[in-house]
């Protein structure tokens, strides 16, 4: 039994009925004028038959679409407003050619843009034909000094879809003869993005966020996404590859201005120097990003096209995102014609993007496009390596459970010791099964076998209790995952030495912090133990678990209303918040409902997987 602290909303608060804030989302976007070469404009019409399957009330409040005291209530007027604003379909080239007629009152007054960007899966490798194949940008929202871009996926087939160029003709939106390229998206995609992105957001991993899922018959949907700036590197790389100096410069200028406007970049110099600032910022963003991805076992198919990621390092398009339970660094997604990159290769791809940015900035500044290989030894690449190592160490120390003050101290004053420990840590983290490379559901993998999160969670407790090292056999027993066989974990002389090194390094850091902070070892270990229980929580979602959870939630509908989905989303993303500094500690004796129980079981079942 427990006594619960209740946090009840005032039921007499009635929602604002006009929702005028939505009216600013009407297709208008400055990019149309600033970089017309980057957009294809479409007329659009209202699309009948949609209903709101999910609505992110928290996000809507954050960007000012709803008042902060708006209750989680999807009234008829709110639902109508969401549909009026976002339930749209473009009138595309196919519609124009066949002369389709639509009632005048259903046609939106403004045009909506699809943007052009580079995509490696397109036949044209300069980005002349690629970009938003099934999305349009709804416009912008301004709130509290910030500007947010809003776009929707599943609003019809554009001329930038791969199908158009593979088959050499325009397609009707929803054409059943093609799947990738028909211009539709699906409900499960929307829900996966909704849940995954909110978990990332809680854990301060940059991400697009989902505002709404509008559902239509046959499981198709429009998924509405929001971010402060939806520009990707590939929005610039296409102009670079095409040698379009003017368009490229305009796009870079546009991006810099947006980051300034949103106060994300605060000290942008004037004149040509702003491009150097831009390059340095992108270097910091991308090196930090891949260090974080490695640390958190996040698989994101980064490649030379600069797609799948936003300029600020935020994740976009969760279709190619995974979060692994162990460091499965040999996993590759099988995309029929090729295999994806692996987690470890993400760093090289990110570095390649930075080299491309160096080429890009030089081109913008000089007007002459030099070959990419001329930038093989650019000083920015050295900076990339340095920031990558710094950030990798920082994430490692944080993962152990040290607080930010102690982390800063260790990185600044005891880097050698941290680096030495990190190398030993990586030995176990990257250790692979004797089973070798094999096929998995959607690709190939060579299983990692040690669950370092379990080790980091339990070790401080055991050290606190015993005040000394644990036995080697105990070390293995804690760290071995379900992927490990007895031969995998057999103790060799070298492995034994590594276990000894690991424990010595751990104690060394504890002692150093204890000495510098003048706190006892026990006090340090207790704090680490508490923080590590959150950072290295047993139940951590993986890509597979998100997919299964989404199927479970979809199976509960239509009984599950958007308001109930919002509550589950809020509870679940907070449950997956692994940041001890932002964790909601007020929510004592939280109760888990039946559905949440089922979701947690799924998380547990898939916790070591892909």
């Amino acid at each position, binding site marked *: 039994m427990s006594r619960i602290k209740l946090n009840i909303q005032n039921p007499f608060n009635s929602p604002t009925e006009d929702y005028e804030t939505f009216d600013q989302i009407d297709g208008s976007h400055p990019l149309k004028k600033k970089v017309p070469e980057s957009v294809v404009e479409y007329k659009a019409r209202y699309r009948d038959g949609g209903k709101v399957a999910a609505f992110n009330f928290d996000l809507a409040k954050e960007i000012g679409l709803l008042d902060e005291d708006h209750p989680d209530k999807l009234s008829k007027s709110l639902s109508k407003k969401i549909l009026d604003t976002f339930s749209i379909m473009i009138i595309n080239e196919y519609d124009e050619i066949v002369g389709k007629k639509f009632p005048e009152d259903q046609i939106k007054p403004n045009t909506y843009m699809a943007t052009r960007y580079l995509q490696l899966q397109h036949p044209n490798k300069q980005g002349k034909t690629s970009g938003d194949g099934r999305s349009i940008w709804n416009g912008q929202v301004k709130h509290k000094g910030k500007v947010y871009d809003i776009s929707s996926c599943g609003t019809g087939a554009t001329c930038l879809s791969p199908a158009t160029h593979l088959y050499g003709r325009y397609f009707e939106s929803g054409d059943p003869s093609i799947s990738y390229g028909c211009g539709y998206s699906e409900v499960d995609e929307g829900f996966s993005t909704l849940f995954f992105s909110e978990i990332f957001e809680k854990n301060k991993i940059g991400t697009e966020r989902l505002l709404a899922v509008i559902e239509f018959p046959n499981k198709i949907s429009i998924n509405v996404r929001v971010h402060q700036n939806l520009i990707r590197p590939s929005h610039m790389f296409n102009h670079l590859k095409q040698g379009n100096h003017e368009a490229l410069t305009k796009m870079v200028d546009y991006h810099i201005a947006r980051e300034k406007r949103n106060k994300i970049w605060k000290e942008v110099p004037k004149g040509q120097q702003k491009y150097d600032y831009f390059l340095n910022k992108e270097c910091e963003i991308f090196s930090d990003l891949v260090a974080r991805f490695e640390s958190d076992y996040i698989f994101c198919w980064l490649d030379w096209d600069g797609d799948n990621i936003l300029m600020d390092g935020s994740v976009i398009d969760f279709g190619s995102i995974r979060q692994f339970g162990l460091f499965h660094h040999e996993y590759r997604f099988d995309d029929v014609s090729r295999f994806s990159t692996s987690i470890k290769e993400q760093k090289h791809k990110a570095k390649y993007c930075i080299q491309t940015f160096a080429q890009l900035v030089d081109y913008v500044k000089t007007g002459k496009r030099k070959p990419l290989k001329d930038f093989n030894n650019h000083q920015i690449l050295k900076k990339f390596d340095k920031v990558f190592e710094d950030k990798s160490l920082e994430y490692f120390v944080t993962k152990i459970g040290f607080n930010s003050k102690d982390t800063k101290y260790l990185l600044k004053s005891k880097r050698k010791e941290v680096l030495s420990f990190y190398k030993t840590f990586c030995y176990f983290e990257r250790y692979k099964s004797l089973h070798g490379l094999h096929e998995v559901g959607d690709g190939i993998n060579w299983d990692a076998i040690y669950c370092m999160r379990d080790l980091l969670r339990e070790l401080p407790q055991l050290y606190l*209790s015993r005040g000394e090292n644990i036995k080697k056999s105990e070390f293995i027993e804690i760290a071995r995952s379900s992927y490990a066989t007895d031969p995998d974990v057999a103790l060799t002389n070298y492995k034994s030495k590594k276990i000894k090194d690991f424990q010595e390094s751990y104690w060394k850091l504890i002692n150093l912090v204890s000495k510098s902070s003048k706190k006892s070892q026990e006090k340090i270990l*207790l704090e680490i133990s508490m923080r590590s229980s959150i950072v290295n929580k*047993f139940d951590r979602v993986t890509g597979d678990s998100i997919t299964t959870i989404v199927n479970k939630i979809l199976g509960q509908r239509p009984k599950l209303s958007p308001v109930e989905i919002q509550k589950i989303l809020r509870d679940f993303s907070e*449950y997956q918040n692994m940041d001890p500094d932002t*964790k909601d500690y007020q929510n*004592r*004796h939280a*109760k888990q409902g039946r559905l949440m129980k089922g979701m947690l079981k799924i998380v547990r079942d898939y916790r070591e997987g892909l």
Partner: protein
Amino acid sequence: MKLVFYGGGFEEYNIELDLEAIRLSGKKRPKVTYIPSCSYGLEADFKAFSDHYRDLGVKQIMYFPIDLPFDRVLEREIQSSDIIHLSGGNTFYFLNHLRKKKWLSKLKTFVGDGGVLTGLSAGGILMTPDIKTASYPSFDCDENEDRIRNFEALNLVEFEFFPHYRNSKRYNEVLTKESKKIKNRSLFASPDGSGLVVEGSRISFIGRNYLFLNGVKHYIKEQTRLIQ
């Protein structure tokens, strides 16, 4: 046998009972383990528990979520604690997982070997013969979502324990009625911040406690006496 029953409430209301638990351990700085009834929301509860015990001078504090898989290394270590605290929460869920993980017998052994077992609310109920008191009154009881049928608990004492007691008519009616059903067995009711300390054959009452026996309610002053 060393047991502490907490009626409920947040840490700041239970300092006296905590100090009793530390005293019973015979150590100034005992090794304490926190077993939450459920891993969901564990972090907030463990942090509060840990912060509180740290203020009382305890530094070796571990946690052991019973509803999650665990390895034998940690399991053995937990058994070497001086104090094990069973948290509040859903009594049925808690019992179900303690039984599934074969920890009922381990806790009995722990107590038999001289360890101090403490329990708040659901944790306290678990130390009694069975967990029936979690199923009433209908207006304030735990849901048996896991539909467990075997209510037998640790059976470390002969009395029954009712936490979060409120001295009101509707509570009294239910407890009076229930105490009649268990003939001659004591049913102790403790409000938040109150509780019982069992040390061998003696029982102490901290704060305001009540006894329901054969349909009659008795107020118990703070005192120590032999368990009857």
